[in-house]
């Protein structure tokens, strides 16, 4: 350990310019990640998970988006301030990313071997032959059968699961220190999804990289990560080790989230009870400019304070924290 | 003194054949008259001059004409030109040229007593015969090339590997781009021609021609290449000359042709009303920039037989209206007197379209609805007019050197045929018919003139056609082009005397 955190995000704010207005979609977001750590980010659709991930690589689509506040300290270096050239050294090399859509995330006109190899060429300066060999090796690593012939295939010749493996191979080819996987399996079949997660599990040990896994499936988080961060409407509302989080979620939203999932457990009478419901929907970013907790309108336990003041993140011990006035008040 | 050498650049707007024996018109005629020789040429004031025939004798009864050919004349391929070739040429023209039978129908037989002698035996006297023997109308063709039995109209040698007899030979023949003629070193008139080359680049666009003339890229531009406004422009340009000489024998006249078979145009009063409604002086001014005069009859003012002593119809709308009322065409309940379709052919749009539009606007004032119908192509118009399936059409035709060719066809009772530019309007006046018959065989110039004066008056009295302004034809040539032919046939005459003095 260098002493420095691998990644330390400080008060990050990301805004999008929409109809002449700067709308923040991620605000005041801070979190840390150590070497070898696995962090899960969960939250409802549109809460800012992907944008956060993209911001780590300096890939927020700009215009209209931009990082308007905060720091992203990667091994102590602020990537927000880094230039494009420096970012290109980091991207794919120190930090790499696997995207949600394996069907469209590979360039259709180049062979998969080439798409892996070029990363190695660019970052390691390998000769084309060596880079190709490295690509084949990576394909083998991610479990693609007969990798030396498959390397010559074009993306459209592969199934979704295989393509996602190729994406993983690309992400890992330079042995990054941080791997970000943004919903890597949502587009895949259940059985294939399981295969991919197994691959992740397997590789986690081998590569020793820190992993950020973005998902909306708490089940996945439970299996794959050791820490979890929950986002709601662009903010972090709860954070902590996975086991405690699942057992005892603290924020009313996360509590709801954990219990609204149907379980594979059969009740003895064969008649499952109705699911827990969180009423309403996630607010749109436009609605976030009003004061108060963004979840208050949907919260059964909302108090007067919740509607006027934004809750601060309160540490709860054991590395846990939640942004809820109930918790703050209970702790006080 | 004539100088030898140099290239004369003129232009072509496209030709389909180089053989004037099978195709009339300037596009073929201008280069054709250089490539092929004729028995004679026609000089200033219609004076016939020797060419391949260095002498000829006409018998007293006017029925036998004997030609002596120049000695040692050769075709471009080196074969000698003989009386047999002349005989062959005349027969070819008679069979294939549009006016072939008009020109040579009365040639009963052709005799070649010796290789350098040709004798024509005529059934009747043919006053214009010698004019028909110039290269434009009767080019001397090599029998050894064309006498192979193939159809003359579509003979391959009309375009490829053309072997002629004239002062210039074909060097390059690419109708899409250019025609190049070079001096015939073995020309039978010694010391001629003077020019090394005549180049006919394909320039379809009149605008381009004007610019090229201005810049001196074209030395010589005859034939409808120049419009009145261009003439004004070019007259001011340095080193360019504009002349209207050289079109007398062509005599291009425009007219409104009405189908005389049907109402309302079968009524002379209606035709007269129209004549009063159309101000041809105004048209001459607007369309031709005042550079031409209104036509007064079938003959062009430059024609030797032209007579000005004809009835004219002053522009007078009130009179026209009154005449129509009287003729039984008052303004009807629908606000109009009558309607008709006016065909507009496609071959002289610059003249006919404005004329037709003017007529439409003018007659609208008289409450006559005119619908213009533009023929989709030349053939469709020909079909309509020659099958008499029309009400009225803009039209125009050439007088040609002799009225028997260009004029009689429109008025002869027995020429009411389904042939274009015949008597398609269906006019028959026995009196005129008799006069035409007499004029055709009259060999005394003065008497003939008198006959034609009568004819012109009668035809205008009957208002067979309503004559429009005459066409404007001008030639532009640049400084240094010398000795251009002074023939009334102008650019359609051989250029063996032309030289460049630059």
């Amino acid at each position, binding site marked *: 350990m260098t002493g420095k955190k691998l990644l330390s995000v400080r008060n990050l704010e990301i805004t999008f310019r*929409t109809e002449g207005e700067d709308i923040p979609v991620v605000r005041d977001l801070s979190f840390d990640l150590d070497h070898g750590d696995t962090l899960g980010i969960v939250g409802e659709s549109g809460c800012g998970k992907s944008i956060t991930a993209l911001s780590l690589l300096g890939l927020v689509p700009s215009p*209209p988006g931009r990082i308007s506040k905060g720091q992203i300290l990667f091994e102590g270096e602020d990537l927000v301030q880094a230039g494009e050239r420096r970012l290109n050294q980091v991207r794919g090399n120190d930090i790499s990313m696997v995207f949600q859509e394996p069907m469209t995330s590979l360039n259709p006109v180049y062979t998969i071997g080439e798409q892996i190899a070029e990363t190695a060429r660019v970052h390691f300066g390998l000769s084309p032959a060596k880079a190709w060999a490295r690509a084949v090796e990576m394909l083998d690593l991610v479990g693609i059968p007969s990798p030396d012939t498959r390397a010559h295939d074009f993306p459209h010749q592969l199934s979704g699961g295989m393509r996602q493996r190729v994406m993983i191979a690309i992400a890992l080819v330079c042995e990054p220190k941080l791997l970000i996987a943004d919903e890597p399996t949502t587009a895949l079949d259940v059985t294939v999804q399981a295969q991919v997660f197994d691959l992740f599990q397997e590789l986690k040990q081998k590569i020793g990289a820190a992993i950020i896994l973005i998902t909306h499936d708490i089940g996945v988080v439970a299996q794959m990560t050791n820490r979890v961060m929950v986002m709601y409407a662009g903010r972090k509302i709860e954070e902590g080790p996975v086991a405690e989080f699942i057992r005892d979620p603290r924020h009313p939203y996360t509590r709801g989230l954990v219990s609204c999932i149907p379980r594979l457990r059969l009740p003895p009478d064969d008649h499952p009870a*109705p699911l827990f*419901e969180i*009423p*309403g*929907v996630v607010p749109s970013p436009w609605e976030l400019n009003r004061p108060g907790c963004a979840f208050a309108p949907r919260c059964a336990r909302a108090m007067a304070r919740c509607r006027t003041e934004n809750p601060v993140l309160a540490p709860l011990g054991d590395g846990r924290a939640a942004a809820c006035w109930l918790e703050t008040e209970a702790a006080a | 003194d004539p100088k030898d050498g140099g290239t004369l650049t003129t232009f072509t707007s496209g030709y389909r054949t180089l053989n004037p024996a099978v195709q009339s018109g300037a596009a073929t005629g201008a280069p054709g008259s250089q490539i092929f020789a004729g028995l004679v040429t026609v000089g200033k004031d219609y004076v016939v001059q020797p060419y391949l025939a260095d002498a000829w004798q006409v018998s007293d009864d006017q029925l036998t004409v004997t030609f002596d050919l120049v000695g040692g004349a050769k075709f471009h391929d080196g074969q000698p030109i003989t009386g047999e070739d002349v005989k062959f040429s005349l027969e070819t023209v008679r069979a294939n040229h549009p006016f072939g039978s008009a020109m040579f129908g009365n040639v009963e037989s052709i005799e070649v007593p010796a290789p350098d002698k040709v004798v024509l035996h005529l059934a009747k006297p043919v006053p214009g015969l010698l004019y028909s023997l110039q290269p434009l109308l009767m080019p001397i063709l090599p029998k050894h090339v064309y006498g192979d039995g193939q159809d003359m109209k579509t003979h391959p040698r009309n375009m490829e590997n053309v072997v002629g007899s004239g002062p210039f030979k074909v060097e390059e023949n690419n109708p899409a781009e250019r025609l190049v003629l070079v001096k015939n070193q073995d020309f039978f008139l010694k010391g001629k021609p003077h020019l090394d080359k005549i180049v006919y680049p394909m320039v379809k666009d*009149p*605008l381009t021609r*004007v*610019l090229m003339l201005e810049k001196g890229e074209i030395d010589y531009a005859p034939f409808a290449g120049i*419009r009145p*406004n*261009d003439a004004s*422009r070019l007259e001011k340009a340095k080193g360019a000359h504009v002349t209207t000489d050289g079109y007398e024998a062509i005599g291009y006249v425009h007219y409104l042709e009405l189908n005389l078979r049907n109402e309302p145009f079968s009524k002379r009063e209606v035709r007269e009303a129209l004549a009063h409604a159309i101000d041809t002086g*105004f048209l001459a001014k*607007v*369309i031709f*920039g005042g550079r031409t005069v209104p036509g007064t009859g079938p003959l062009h003012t430059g024609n030797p037989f032209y007579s000005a002593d004809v009835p004219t119809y002053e522009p007078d709308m009130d009179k026209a209206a009154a005449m129509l009322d009287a003729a039984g065409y008052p303004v009807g309940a629908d606000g109009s007197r009558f309607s008709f379709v006016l065909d*507009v052919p*496609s071959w002289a*749009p*610059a003249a006919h*379209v*404005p004329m*037709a*539009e*003017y007529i*439409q*606007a003018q007659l609208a004032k008289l409450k006559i609805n005119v*619908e*213009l*119908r*533009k023929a*989709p*192509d030349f053939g469709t118009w020909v079909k309509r007019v020659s099958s008499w399936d029309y009400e009225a059409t803009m039209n125009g035709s050439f007088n040609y050197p002799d009225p028997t060719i260009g004029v009689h066809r429109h008025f002869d009772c027995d020429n009411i045929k389904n042939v274009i530019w015949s008597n398609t309007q269906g006019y028959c006046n026995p009196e005129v018919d008799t006069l035409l018959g007499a004029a055709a065989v009259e060999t005394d110039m003065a008497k003939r003139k008198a006959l034609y004066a009568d004819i012109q008056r009668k035809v205008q009295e009957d208002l067979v056609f309503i004559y429009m302004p005459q066409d404007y034809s001008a030639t532009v040539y640049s400084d240094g082009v010398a000795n251009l032919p002074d023939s009334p046939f102008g650019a359609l005459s051989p250029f063996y005397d032309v030289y460049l003095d630059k």
Partner: protein
Amino acid sequence: MTATSTTPASAPEAVSPGRQAWRMFRQNHSALFGLAIIALIVLASVFGPYVYTVPPREMVWMPLTPPGESEYLLGTDYLGRDLLAGLINGGRVTLTVGLSAAVLTVLIGITVGALAGFFGGRVDDVLMRITEFFQVLPNLLFAMVVVMLFSPSLLNIAVAIGVVSWTSTARLTRAEFMRLREMEFVKAERSIGAGNARLIWRVILPNAAPPLIVVAALSIGTAILFEAGLSFLGLSDPNATSWGRMIGDNRPYILDSSWGVTFPGLCIFLTVLAISLVGDGLNDAFNPKLRQR
């Protein structure tokens, strides 16, 4: 247990997709500018002849008078006709032909495309063969042939343009129909007993409308250019003068009068430009992707 619905503070007003597009369109300055020009041109063509009564086909002044040198504002043409009167009346002809050709293009295109896209299979095969066939024909050349052979009346010109230009509309319509046909709301309509006719014209077509409206708008411009081309070549109704024909007629005189071709050309240019601006504006307005930006 109650199924709670979200209850925003106040009920939002109903915003139809059309209204939404119009709102978007209103913010597009160049599109509004285009719309204004079109309005101007249409007004001038419709009412102009009653206001400016100089007869367009009559020779009223010295030929080739430059603009400003006589009472005739834009000068006269080679026959001394008033150019301004010609432009005003020519606008009528140009717009009429352009509009009717576009209507024809769109009608044929949509019908063929809709049937092919909706029914697929054999119907599609046959209709696409026909479409391919018309695509293979050289469009301008073929239109020239048709106009020439069947006499150049305004109707024939419009028909010829329509007949050679409908294929791209058909392809677009087909693609849209194929896409929409598989959409669940179409299946939903079917599951509640909607017949094919309803599905095609009432369900799918309105949803395919945005791109079709754009091509319809643009095809007016294309048709105007097409008509101009034909007229320029002399394939025009002799009883009606359009802008394109004015260019063709005046072209031989450009050395003496550039205005004779410049003004009618500008009229065409402006009209088609305005139409394209509006078309672009519509395209943007209908494109939800751009809406967010």
